[in-house]
């Protein structure tokens, strides 16, 4: 014969397990990104629905938790890359080269940020480039070097950060997010690691 409280103990266990599991799944889904609705082009990811009234509950929760105020869809689109074009995570002690092409936009900015979205302290005091102040080669193409040591031309330093993300903001872009072509987005090529 079983103990009379056996069923109650099991019910309590089931409830506690359910609670813990439910919260764990919520924490895991809100940790990175903005839930579903992500669009990807190579290493670049954006969440166009986060910028409009049709935002989904996961994106809304993720934005609220991090305290973000995303760009409206009519203002522009933010693409974040946390890996290079080969899929390896971006690391502070490595050198990278970012090169053309870029999707059409009225203005764009390209910068480095921590995984939490803060600009990175660096000796040059520069957090990013805009489409107006980046140095271009003849014909309009450009290269951007990411390295801890100074480089000629367009150069961004991740400073002492170990991991970082690249943030590409396209202001007023006619981009069709339903059909993104990775070939029209910048390549992130790892050159080597210190």
């Amino acid at each position, binding site marked *: 014969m079983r103990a009379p409280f056996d069923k109650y103990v099991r019910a309590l*266990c089931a409830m506690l397990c359910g609670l813990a*599991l439910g919260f764990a799944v919520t924490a895991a889904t809100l940790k990175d990104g903005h839930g579903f609705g992500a669009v990807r082009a190579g290493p670049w990811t954006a969440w166009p629905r986060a910028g409009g009234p049709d935002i989904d509950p996961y994106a809304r929760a993720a934005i*609220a938790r991090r305290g973000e105020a995303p760009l409206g869809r009519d203002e522009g689109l933010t693409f974040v890359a946390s890996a290079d074009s080969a899929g390896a995570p971006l690391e502070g002690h490595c050198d990278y080269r970012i090169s053309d092409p870029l999707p059409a936009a009225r203005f764009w900015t390209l910068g480095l940020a921590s995984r939490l979205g803060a600009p990175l302290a660096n000796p040059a005091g520069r*957090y990013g480039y805009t489409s107006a102040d980046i140095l271009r080669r003849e014909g309009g193409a450009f290269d951007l070097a990411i390295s801890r040591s100074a480089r000629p031309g367009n150069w961004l330093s991740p400073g002492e950060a170990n991991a970082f993300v690249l943030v590409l*903001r396209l202001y007023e872009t006619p981009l069709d997010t339903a059909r993104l072509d990775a070939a029209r987005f910048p390549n992130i090529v790892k050159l080597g690691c210190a």
Partner: protein
Amino acid sequence: MTLKDRAFDILPWAIAALLIAGVVHIVSVLLTPLVAPRDAYASLRKAVETNGPAIAKAAQNGVALLAPMTPDAQLLPFEDPAMVEGVCLFDLAKGPLHLLANVDGDDYFGLSFHSASGAIFHAMTDRASNKGKIDIVVGDARQIEDLEADDSDDAPLQETRLTAPSPLGFVLIRALAKRPSDYERARAVVEAVSCEAMTPQP
């Protein structure tokens, strides 16, 4: 007791735990925007009301200028360091919000209208301005209806009217400083925006 019996014994409880987990997950995702202590609206409101270090210039004409982002301090994550930003908090219980801005049309100037719970209900840029002027009234459904009832038929409408989904929210004003030397000019554009509650007509 065989292994099979044991499994059948535990199975209903495991299913119950999974069902509870599902409900807890859905409810917690839906509740997060309502209870998140540091969402964008909460941090902007706190900064504006205490006039903390994240505010470069206290609210004037309803617009508070945000301090430039630095690696150590940034009010909102993932904002663009190349933008000069201002914020205008609104509470429609005090009347509809009237936002006026003058833009030159050369450089990017964007407005995004956020409800306190995090959704953007409208966004626009200087490209949508009317001869260099942006004139927007934000109200709840009743306030907008009242305004429409007062419209005369012959005068063309000057302003854009927006219905806000919730009485509390904020407008984020962004002006691009294309080069570091453009910062002052972009700052002047943001400072010139006026954003005030409309007083009821007598």
